[in-house]
């Protein structure tokens, strides 16, 4: 009986995992499929999946017609990487200080941090545009990094603060008894055990910066254009080149998927360490 139940249980788990895998990969499969279909095959109802409909032309056209995409990917990589790094480097200490140190007006500071990113983008767009223009920063990656930092930093601070507050106090107290200063405690104890959360926050910040569209549209001309703009180029007024758009999208999501796969082991190990009772 027990054996049969466990077989049934295993089957259930396998089934659930299969469903999960399909749900998770379905959109990506559809994206890849769309990127290798001719437009007329794709827009047929139902889509024409006969072998003659498949083509690599979309990828070739994306690479040849929009040399922009290559530059956009490099731009996005630079912008997203620096945004993420700065958001974590600046955000983690701030979050720790607000979580653990006795700081005057910590509540007010937190509210201000939150308020800073509650302004609708459109309200700050014009003042920001004027400032950037006067500083000669329009169409620079630096500007995008600064702008993205301004709305990623508050989120990183809030997320990490929540995590730091959830850490058992014991480790930090032990470090204090061991003679560690708050900074030493943060750097040598708190940060190493917070890797999973740091990575989660970092991936969040990276994706935010990678996907951001509105400010990239307003604040760039041609040289600092990012991936979302390059992809949007395939959706015009009268015509949407779905195949090329999907090809561009497939190329552009590749770095994020790659990043997640590369960091997967670190994240898992981090979680395993984090499981230990503090």
């Amino acid at each position: 009986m027990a054996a049969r139940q466990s077989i049934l249980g295993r089957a259930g788990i396998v089934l659930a995992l299969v469903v999960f895998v399909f749900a998770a990969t379905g959109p990506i499969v559809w994206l890849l499929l769309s990127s290798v279909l001719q437009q007329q095959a794709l827009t047929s109802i139902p889509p024409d999946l006969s072998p003659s409909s498949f083509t690599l032309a979309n990828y070739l056209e994306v690479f040849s017609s929009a040399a922009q995409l290559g530059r956009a990917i490099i731009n996005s990589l630079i912008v997203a990487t620096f945004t993420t790094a700065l958001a974590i480097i600046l955000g983690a200490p701030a979050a720790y200080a607000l979580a653990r140190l006795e700081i005057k007006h910590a509540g007010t500071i937190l509210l201000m941090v939150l308020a800073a990113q509650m302004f609708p983008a459109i309200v700050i767009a014009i003042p920001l545009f004027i400032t950037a223009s006067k500083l000669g920063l329009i169409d620079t990656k630096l500007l995008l990094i600064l702008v993205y930092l301004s709305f990623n930093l508050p989120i990183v601070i809030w997320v990490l603060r929540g995590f730091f507050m959830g850490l058992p106090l014991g480790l930090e107290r032990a470090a204090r008894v061991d003679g560690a200063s708050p900074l030493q405690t943060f750097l040598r104890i708190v940060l190493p055990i917070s890797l999973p959360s740091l990575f989660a926050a970092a991936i969040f910040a990276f994706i935010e910066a990678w996907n951001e569209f509105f400010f990239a549209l307003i604040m760039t001309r041609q040289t600092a254009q990012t991936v979302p703009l390059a992809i949007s180029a395939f959706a015009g007024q009268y015509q949407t080149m779905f195949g090329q758009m999907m090809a561009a999208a497939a190329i552009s999501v590749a770095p994020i998927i790659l990043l997640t796969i590369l960091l997967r082991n670190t994240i898992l190990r981090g979680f395993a360490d984090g499981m230990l009772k503090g």
Partner: protein
Amino acid sequence: MPSIELIDINKSYGAVHVCKGINLTIADREFVTLLGSSGCGKTTTLNMIAGLDDPTSGDILMDGRRVNDLEPVGRDVAMVFQNYALYPHMTVAGNMGFNLRLRNFSPAEIHERVGAAASALDLSHVLDRYPSQLSGGQQQRVAIGRAIVRHPKVFLFDEPFSNLDAALRNRMRAEVKELHLRLGVTSIFVTHDQEEALSISDRVAIMRNGSVEQFGTPEDVYADPETVEVARFIGTPQVEILECVIDRSNGSNTVLRCGSASLPITARQAVALGTRTEKVLVTIRPEYVTIGGQGTSATIRDVQPTGPSTLVKLGWEGSAIMARLNGIVRLTVGETAHFSIDPMQLMLFDNESGRRIKTKS
């Protein structure tokens, strides 16, 4: 010179008054336990001694010097935490040597000190492991090792054995006691387990509601409790507290009427009771209660053989009392038995304050 002195220590978290005027003087090399149920302020007191919490008012002295404003490292205290608080990303050696690295000890000296502590604690073979790869007892010893490599002036233990099973707990108690004998470092130990406190300490401070009820040797607090709460808290099994009326109707022969039973008292106790007319609280340790032959009659409510002795709960209308009989004694619950007490061993407490009514000796 006393090693540690707490003078009128108060601690409040907002409106919550956790420690209410604590005064303690701990001698050099002494092993002191702060004993109490949860929420009594014992851990807060320990944290204030460690320098992890600041008292709201009052002074903490170490070797006669006020240390209120010193960080833990400045007070030269080492602490073992309830959940061990081992650094999960460091090896056993890393955990034990962390405080030495922070103080810029040479790698050679760190190696030597960690090695010595590890061999004393039987940890030499696990120095390269991570805490998650250790058993509970090993983790506990790493936490202790982390404290002793520093050669601190004071050891602080915050309920260090509460996560261990009974057998391991007994062994660790013995190890800590032995460690204390060997190193001779002033130690303060927090626990809610009175047996642990009595077995390990030179002196026990029994805390209740943020105050020290009694501070004395294990013998003192067991045999001579100053309050009814201490009497109730110390000792296994917990004693029954009787509410008794003083009966002086029989001339000079004063007795206590406890429900339907009468208990005799000594002349000294009668003197100590003076002219008071209100009820008193009365208790007696079970070992001073005997069963058989003559005496007060009562019903056997419960019989617990424990091996070397048998615990018997005797009841009568309105009250009960515990007796401890030597060896295994066969008694039947529900039957009537006769018991007598040693009046010398009766402990009387004020009904209002719960304080002991002491006889003058």
